């Protein structure tokens, strides 16, 4: 009887174990344990100085960790630098472009830096330019491009050696809404192509719709890492509902507080009552019945939409290193 072959568990795209980094006395990262699966579009969220860029720079082999370890597709970022650099594309939060070069020259140069043979470079450059929508600007000087186009050129540079993991530090910062939307569309396309993308951004509303997983970091410590959809249930205690009544609002607030499934109830500035209910799938019908039974006229009841921004604001204190 032959035993079926044991398939090894898929190696995560990124795995860090107790990753730490100190700049002198200041600890930028403290024991960061992070796992990013292959194919993830992973949002990395944190205040300025929280440690996002430090993490990305360590993963990009640009910065060695003070302690702990980090692996990119199974390769240690300290001991297998060459392998890691072949697998990653790093886009820092600044352009780093040569303004006096033409667009194709710039990509050609970085293609050569990644040792792409000259016979293949022309086609590769044309492909990445098409992917980021800069084909028409191939002969333009970089200094003459708009900020959005320079950002797209930066993305093209990242893609020039066909990396499996993209580390993008604030790729949409400073872009106008159209350029931002176009950039996000390109990222989604890249995810469909099978790339793993780690994106650090301050524009949380966009990360919410873009990323399938997120991590929140503050003062170098990981606060949350998991699916974007699950962040609310994990980070918030229960679900929140907004209730509007006509008549005696204090009495309505009192009724809400008395319900057994209510975790908390408070009156908001706009006159509505915010009620948090316990349970994975809370049902507000009992609450509604109690209010109506108490002689109050219910004019509105809906679940409060808790966005990533709100969760972020609640779970972090804006503390930086």
């Amino acid at each position: 009887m032959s035993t079926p072959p044991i398939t090894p568990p898929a190696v995560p795209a990124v795995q860090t174990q107790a990753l730490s980094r100190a700049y002198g006395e200041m600890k930028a990262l403290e024991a960061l344990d992070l796992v990013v699966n292959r194919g993830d579009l992973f949002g990395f969220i944190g205040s300025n100085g929280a440690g996002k860029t430090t993490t990305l720079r360590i993963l990009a082999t640009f910065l060695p960790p003070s302690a702990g370890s980090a692996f990119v597709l199974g390769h240690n970022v300290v001991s297998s630098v060459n392998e890691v650099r072949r697998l990653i594309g790093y886009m820092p939060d600044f352009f780093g472009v040569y303004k006096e070069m033409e667009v194709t020259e710039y990509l050609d140069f970085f293609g050569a830096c990644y040792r792409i043979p000259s016979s293949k470079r022309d086609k590769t450059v044309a492909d990445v330019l098409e992917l980021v929508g800069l084909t028409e600007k191939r002969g333009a000087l970089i200094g003459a491009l708009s900020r959005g186009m320079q950002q797209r050129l930066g993305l093209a540079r990242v893609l020039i050696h066909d990396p499996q993991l993209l580390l993008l530090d604030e790729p949409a910062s400073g872009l106008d809404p159209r350029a931002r939307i176009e950039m996000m569309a390109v990222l989604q396309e890249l995810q469909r192509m099978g790339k793993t993308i780690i994106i650090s951004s301050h524009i949380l509303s966009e990360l919410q719709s873009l990323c399938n997983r997120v991590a929140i970091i503050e003062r170098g410590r990981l606060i949350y890492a998991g699916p974007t959809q699950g962040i609310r249930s994990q980070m918030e205690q229960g679900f929140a509902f907004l209730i509007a009544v006509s008549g005696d609002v204090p009495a309505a607030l009192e009724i809400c507080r008395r319900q057994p499934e209510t975790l908390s109830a408070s009156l908001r500035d706009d006159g509505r009552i915010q009620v948090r209910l316990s349970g994975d799938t809370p049902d507000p019908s009992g609450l509604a019945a109690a209010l109506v039974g108490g002689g109050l006229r219910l004019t509105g009841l809906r679940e409060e939409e808790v966005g990533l921004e709100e969760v972020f604001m609640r779970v972090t204190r804006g503390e930086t290193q």
Partner: protein
Amino acid sequence: MIALTVIERELRVATRQRWAWVGRWLPAALAILMFGGVYLLYPARSSGDFGKVLFHSLGFVMVLVAGVGGMLSTCDCLSREHREGTLGLLFLTELSALDVLAGKILASSLRLLLGLMAVVPVLAISFLAGGTSLRSMAMLVMAILSLLWVSMAAGVFASARYRTAGQSLAGAMLVMLILCVGLPALASINETSWSVKWLTQLCWLAWPLSAYGILVAQGPTPEFFKTLGVVQVVSWGLLLLAGLRLSGSWRVVGDGSGVRFRSFRFWVAGPAARERLKRRLLDDTPYAWRCCLPAGRGRLVWLWVGLSWFIYVLGCLMRPRWFFTPESVLFMTFCTHLVLKVWVALETPRVFISDRFSGAMELLRVSLLSPRELVWGQCKALVLLFGGPVLTTVLVEVALLIMGPWGGQGGAFTRWVLFGCLVVFVADIPVLALFCLAQAMRLRSETHSITLGFAFVMVLPWLLFFGAIGALTSLPNSLSQHQDLTLWVGICLLVDFVLWAWSRARLKQPWGGLSDPASGSSTPAS
């Protein structure tokens, strides 16, 4: 006064720099060292003699420092603001070009002034020793201040004109060269050719070193104050030009220069040749290609070297009595060597530091290029830019050594001098490049890298040589001309060797936190 805002800002920035502190005690320490050296080495017959030697030695050094230091302290003050895009922000406020200039000059000069002031007490020893009068001392200080002012004005003028640190430094050096060498040369030519009396007089009065020269040669004369006045007019003229340039240029930012550059590059290199060179370099050493940009600079070096030697050869053919003499050969050699060395020093750290500022270096460091390949790329670019012109210069000078005009009186010794210069030149060029490169990795300022390159490779051997000569003159048997020359060449080669070894060791060290793919290791940054 609104200019005080700029001064205050500049002073705040200056106080945070390490050299603000060092710049106060180091000049005093050096002056005391020099006092000790003169005291020990000079066999003075009386305290008056000793005071005189001290006065002239210290005065000479202070003049040198003021002439070079003033230019260095201001040559990147405005161009840096230009590059960082902060100049426009200043002009969006109530500040005028005059305010900005005043702020920049006063803030830049303060460190140097404090340094020079620290030397004055040591200088006063020469007065106490009876070597000079109080009046002469005051006049020396005035001459130094005048030189400092014109030197700073030259730096500011170049800084307002150019955007990169290297260009600004080269521009300031050119202005000072015109003032310090060009004016006496013009006066001499005028005397021999046109004999326009007022032109000669004006040239000598406008010469920044005139005041010091008059003081040393004749003592206090009315001419001294005249020359101070004319030098002031020249300085203010330079500042006025800088102000005009500044008030008109700060708005011009962005891509205009790029468009101009592209047409120039196309015109100079040609598309097919450029493409071939690009392919070859990118496949072999990608960073060398980047360091060769903007294209056309190599041809400028060729143009300069070719034109210089062409004019010289033409002169030798047409007026051999003037040009085909040992002195002319030596002068030509000196000029060619100096310009090529300065050019190499200016070129070497340019790309490295520019890439570090733009962030491009970070992108390169996470690519597959190792630090060694980056350094090698820069070296290869320098070879491409300067290899041909340097080799041509060496070959021409070898030809002159063989077939030159060495028959007359003193010709044989001049031939040896040329040989010595050639040996030092061949040794200096690679060491200068390597040393400036090592500095560029360490420092964040192009000006500092270049200045250190000049100071260590080109000035230090001379200081050591003069020190050695000073020490050896106290010996009973003084050195012959040939021994002097051998000593100078030996010191130059020794300094070159030490700097070469240091630079190599420095370039082999891992860059701050940089992982080297070749070794597969990385070093934690401090």
